[in-house]
């Protein structure tokens, strides 16, 4: 397990520990940064993996006086672009400088989004059981759409549609909560 204490075991292992500790703390944020460009969860995770390896290779060059996450996100952006270049569909989605534009706009929107997203947990708690179970299956258990469809007795298309509706309901809920409705 990584820990913040640099131990007995020399420079290399101290650096490893430091890297892992920094990386694990930033990983969720890096994931969300990547997911803005490549929203599909499994693909975004693959890109985060590749980013982790690239970060470790270049960890010597990291300036410890600077925050880790922005440094890591620059790598993530490069890795995401490399990944996108090999995939026609994602390339089409992000062409014309849209990737950079989205990433930048997300930074600007951050305070506003935080004020809404802090209600996400309580909104999840308000979902009816069936919806809650689907969203939990998809995002938390990572059950796979076929299994979720099978369990709910719906088609795959209907299950995707259902996920879309649930996210919409969550969005309405967090927006109302942020407005104090």
């Amino acid at each position, binding site marked *: *397990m*990584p820990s913040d204490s640099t131990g007995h075991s020399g420079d290399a*292992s101290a650096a*490893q520990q430091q*890297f*892992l500790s920094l990386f*694990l703390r930033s990983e*969720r944020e890096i*994931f*969300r940064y990547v*997911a*803005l460009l490549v*929203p*599909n*969860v*499994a693909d*975004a*995770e693959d890109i985060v*993996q590749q980013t982790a*390896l690239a970060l*470790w290779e270049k960890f010597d060059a990291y300036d410890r006086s600077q925050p880790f996450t922005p440094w890591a996100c620059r790598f993530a952006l490069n890795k995401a672009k490399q990944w996108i270049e090999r995939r026609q*569909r*994602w390339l*089409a*989605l992000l*062409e*014309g400088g*849209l990737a950079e*534009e*989205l990433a930048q*706009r*997300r930074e600007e*929107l951050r305070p506003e*989004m935080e004020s809404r*997203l802090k209600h*996400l*947990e*309580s909104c*999840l*708690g308000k979902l009816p*059981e069936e919806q*809650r*179970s689907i*969203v*939990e299956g998809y*995002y*938390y*258990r*990572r*059950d*796979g*759409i076929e299994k979720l469809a099978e369990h709910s007795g719906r088609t795959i298309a209907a299950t*995707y*549609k259902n*996920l*879309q509706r649930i*996210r919409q309901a*969550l*969005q309405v809920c*967090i927006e109302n909560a942020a407005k104090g409705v």
Partner: protein
Amino acid sequence: MKIVFPSRDFDKTVAAACHGSASDEQARALNEVLRSDAAARDEYILRLEIHSRLASEPDLFALASEDKIATSEKILPLRPPRRGTDRKRTWVLALAACVTLLAAGWWGLQVSRQNEPKGTTSKAVAMLNRVVDAQWNQRDEAPRLGAPLEPGWLRLKSGLAQIVFYSGARVAIEGPTEFQLISPNEALCRSGKLTAEVPPEARGFRVDTPQMNVTDLGTSFGVDVKDRRTELHVFKGTVEFQPTGSTVRQNLKEGTGAMTESSRPPKLIAADPKAFASLFDLQLKSTAAELLRHERWRASAGRLNEDPSLLVHFDFEQTDTSEWRLRNASGRKNVAPDATIVGCQWTEGRWPDKHALEFRSVNDRVRFDVPGEYESLTLAAWVRVQGLDRQINSLFMSDGFEAGTVHWSVRQDGVLALTAIGSEPREYQICTSPPALTLNQFGLWVHLAVVIDGSAGQVAHYLNGIPASEHALKIKPPFRVGVAELGNWNAKGFPRNDPFMIRNFGGAMDEFCLFGRALNENEIRALYSAGKPQPDAAAELKTN
């Protein structure tokens, strides 16, 4: 295709992007609207943020679940196993190969924190299910039949043995074999011969040999390790193998196999079931015997359900394991309705095709309500104890401390305890057996029963059909159940954080009976005999 914002098309296309199912055409149209319309862009960013938070913040789910239980007693599958964890671990291992330090990633951390064991917990990963003329070459004492097996070496000199991993995988080995148990889903074979049968829930079961790593992708294979050579035979389904030191994985289909010698590249061979005949025979006999036991128990359970004093009978036989209701199979189910499963995980019961519920987290429980007053009560359950982590580990407890209710539990030291609560304030009686459940019974299915006989003024504890202790009962009937839980306790207003008040059970249950009368010793023994996982003497098969 052109998309405007806001529109249904926009909603649909954003969702398709999240699910990774957008077409090229949709991707192009989305790009256009996002570049030309600032409002669409902001909306897109927010929607993707919701999507990626859900995917990256497991806490959102765990915490919301606990809340719900505290406030509304809603039913939720808590902390289910995460598919994502496997993926995660693979890449972290790749990373670790670079940094040599193994980190489990935050998902891994999350999971390990939640399941952090406290107190006595069995480390067992498998059990020794059957043996035929087995001679062992163990450094310490030879493994006992039916005993839980902890990670470590099994050295079978001759004969046959079957090991059931807690993942559900069944491995038969033929002596001489040196076999190391690593985890519930992982083993190593240094030399010898084995067959593995892997049910769907144990998919990913892995056997390593000096020459290759074998990962089962469903059903059945054989491995033969001799000198510096490993043969892999796939009898059913698909198996993935990876020669040691190579990064290449290859899938082998049914009827094929592979052979590696020293470090030479693998050769493809045809699967030869004949070479594993004795092991198949053992697996077959064992499966057949278990199906038969299960069938016999079903028949007797059917008869039991007609007993008018049987208020609740959870047989855990329902086939739909996504179901949150636990069916009361008793003929008097109009007395007590079905129960609600909160959290818990479905797992294998006494027999491979029998279901059980596993209690692991502090929130796992089964809740039900039995109205009425009774002069006597009998409680009986088949349980597999995984660990006695709490001072008091609940088997069955009515909520709170209501007059006339009882709490049935196992204490940390293995003592069976029954607390009867009287009608006066602070009036209660605790009847405890001598330590009955010891470490070497952990991981095994045991039958526990307690009889609260109001008319004779007596309490009796039973373990596997045999009386464990008897006590004079001072609390007077009538007794009640009311709202009660299996595997946990709702303290109802008592401080939640007091460790003494946390009483969740660690283990599995695959049958529970509640009678509104006192059963006698013979009846308890009959319950045990009808349900015991395997006949006492027949487990050791003889070769013909």
